[in-house]
């Protein structure tokens, strides 16, 4: 259990570093969020007051401390009669949306979750299937097609693929809506219909990695001794494919976890192209309006999700391959009984 605790502690450390870096970067940047709140005309006194109200008058590490404290106990901005309360877990307060960041993120999170989970399911299913088929027909037409497609998809920029999908499938053919989001609560039909294009776009872009990994590892696995033994025992090839895929569970889980973490943090370009109000869109808007609390909050949530996904993959490793388990049984050292048998 100790290594698991060590991993959790390490993950927390990573989070702290990311957060500190985010603060440091925006503290160095030549933007002053208080300037917008101050309005026009803005006297130096008003600006100072706005800074104080928002909490931007202190050094960045002190702000980082308040941010961390606010996660646990909440935070109150302002002084005197003008008070804004932000309940725990408080990720900061946006003075442009006049809402706490936790609520802002909470509103957009379902959109991002819908995009991320669908995309990961689709890209891993397509990628693994394509890779396995290509490995089986190594050097054949299908193998070449898969390799060619994966080269294109791995090198194509997201905005090109996304825009192309919108123009061709939605605008020209009119098969699917070109953008927007429908709540799952309003029925799964419209919800899925609006998400098919984003899912397909992301799956096309990310699936190539799966196809390549599965193809090369499958070829390697099918040449190993255990595959030969299974073949010699008369097992059908499909069963041997399953053995090989089972041996790939470890790298594939890591890949899925990383992708899921990254997608849950928001996909900036895809959300923008398909007009999806997710975390990525929120981050993009906040960047253009210098909404520092939202930027920090979204970045924090994004890194939290990536770290959590990594942690989950790490903790799953010994379950997928018992050789990595701590305290697993080892071969008994030879005994007299064995040598005399």
């Amino acid at each position: 259990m100790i290594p698991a605790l060590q991993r959790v502690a390490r993950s927390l450390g990573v989070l702290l570093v990311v957060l500190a870096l985010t603060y440091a970067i925006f503290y160095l940047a030549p933007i002053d969020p208080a300037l917008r709140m101050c309005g026009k005309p803005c006297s130096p006194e008003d600006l100072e007051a706005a800074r104080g109200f928002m909490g931007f008058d202190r050094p960045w590490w002190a702000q980082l401390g308040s941010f961390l404290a606010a996660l646990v106990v909440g935070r109150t901005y302002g002084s005197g009669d003008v008070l804004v309360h932000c309940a725990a877990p408080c990720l900061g307060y946006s003075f442009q949306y006049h809402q706490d960041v936790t609520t802002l993120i909470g509103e957009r999170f379902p959109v991002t979750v819908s995009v991320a989970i669908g995309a990961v399911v689709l890209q891993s299913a397509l990628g693994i299937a394509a890779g396995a088929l290509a490995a089986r027909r190594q050097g054949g037409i299908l193998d070449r097609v898969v390799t060619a497609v994966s080269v294109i998809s791995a090198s194509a920029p997201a905005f090109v693929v996304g825009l192309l999908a919108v123009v061709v499938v939605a605008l020209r053919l009119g098969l699917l809506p070109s953008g927007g989001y429908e709540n799952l609560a309003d029925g799964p039909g419209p919800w899925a219909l609006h998400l098919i294009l984003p899912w397909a776009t992301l799956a096309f872009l990310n699936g190539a990695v799966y196809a390549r990994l599965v193809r090369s590892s499958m070829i390697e696995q099918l040449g190993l001794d255990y595959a030969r033994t299974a073949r010699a025992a008369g097992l059908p090839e499909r069963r041997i494919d399953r053995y090989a895929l089972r041996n790939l569970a470890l790298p594939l889980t890591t890949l899925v976890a990383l992708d899921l973490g990254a997608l849950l943090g928001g996909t900036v370009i895809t959300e923008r192209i398909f007009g999806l109000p997710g975390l990525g869109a929120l981050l993009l808007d906040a960047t253009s309006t210098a909404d520092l609390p939202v930027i920090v909050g979204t970045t924090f949530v994004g890194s939290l999700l990536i770290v959590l996904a990594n942690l989950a993959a790490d903790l799953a490793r010994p379950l997928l391959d018992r050789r990595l388990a701590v305290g697993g049984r080892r071969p008994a050292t030879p005994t007299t009984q064995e040598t005399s048998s």
Partner: protein
Amino acid sequence: MTTASDLLVLDALHVAIAGRTIVSGLDLTVRRGRITALVGESGSGKSISALSTIGLQPAGAEVRGSARLDGEELVGLAPGPLRQVRAHRVGTVFQEPGQSLSPVMKVSAAFRDVLAVREDLRGAARVRERTRELLASVGLPDPDRTAASYPHELSGGEMQRVVIALALSGDPDLLIADEPTTALDVTVQRGILELLRRIVEERAVGVLLITHDMGVVGEIADEVVVLKDGAVVETGSVREVLGNASAPYTRELLTAVPRLAEALEHASAADGAAEEGEPVVRVEGLSVEYRRRGGAHRALDGVGMEIRPGQIHGLVGESGSGKSTWGKALAGLVPVEASTLELGGVDPRTLGRAARRAAYAQVGMVFQNPASSLNPRRTVGWSVAEPLQLEGTTSRADAARRVAAALEQVRLPASYTRRLPHELSGGQRQRVSIARALIRRPSLLVADEPTSALDVTIQAHVIEVLREAIEEARFACVFISHDLAVVGSLADHVTVLRAGRAVEQGTAREVLGSPQHEYTRALLASIPDPERRLSPR
């Protein structure tokens, strides 16, 4: 000539890959209740012949001729029917038991899948019952524990028994065993060979045994076919072939097998050699502990040795006995505890960084696998000169001279400096490794299983080269091997190691001639001997 007891008959079997003939005209018969050994050195085509008969030849291989199992022609059979033949009539055992099963599946899962295909058996309870029965039949004492284990939780011997149990499922007529004991320790090998013999007697299966080891042939085979470069050089009963070989190649193979009797003769002659010179190595109370997940592991526990110039000290033990660790400890590659540790009279642990490195630089090392211990993209000359280059004090011309001298020491022509490792044979590569270890004129050479990856005829030659180099340059040598006969033929002193402890230590004559410890006696008795069954009991 086919009789009722003929099970597998190969008739003029040809195998070619990419137009290159690998096997040319192999004739061979396996009879029920008999073991036919197909013997040859690496590259002779013995494995590919066996694989080709059951349709497992590598992609692109062309198989011609005839292979009949119980009268049914297998060459040219479609993949589907061939798989049925493999599933119901043939069992197969390969060399590396540790890698014969998928590492992420329990043994029981392998049995579940195999029994479903080979015995059409389904249902958890029935599969469990049959698994238990099969595992017990190969002499595994606790079948349920074995079935619930992952491959890495079992020893090599246990795993090979598991693989044999899998091969016996479906009650096959023919068992193909491809070097089934080569990766195992001698004492474990003995158990597996006895098991194979018992299976043949009880089940009346025919066995095609593929091996490079004449000792194994002598222990269990009935018929022998000797293969060289894809062609049969000799066929006959084990008595004829081993007792009265007609082909020169067979005789060469037989004489190359290290024999204990010869080793003893050598040891007696070497005994009484003057103990002259100051000890090159003096070690007492040497222990090495490896820390790993879940606690420390004591790989060596209070061992000691003393070697003088020109002497060879043999370290013998089975896998995991700590013999390689000992070699690494002498070269300063692992952290050690020792009451005495002196190289050339100095304790390197008391020296500063630079001086310590210089002290350990007197130790040359040769490893087991010559294929992976030389840089494949560098010439022989570069590899041999590398230690000098690292030292950085030798001029180019001087280095070239010393490379030539080192190659001369291992009986390789100086023209080999420009060759790349893949242009050399395994034995030549190992001689290059030895030359590299000798170029700095070490006072101690640690040779860790230097001949274990080599064919017997080449092994004999490499050992000869090593012996001459030692006599010439008078350095001390630690020779590590699992093979008592090899050690006996070379060493002046021998230490028998077991689980990190020295169970017996003394001159080669004492240890091999009159072993005191039960374990040494067990090791000696386990060495396969081509003549054991030939001599009247």
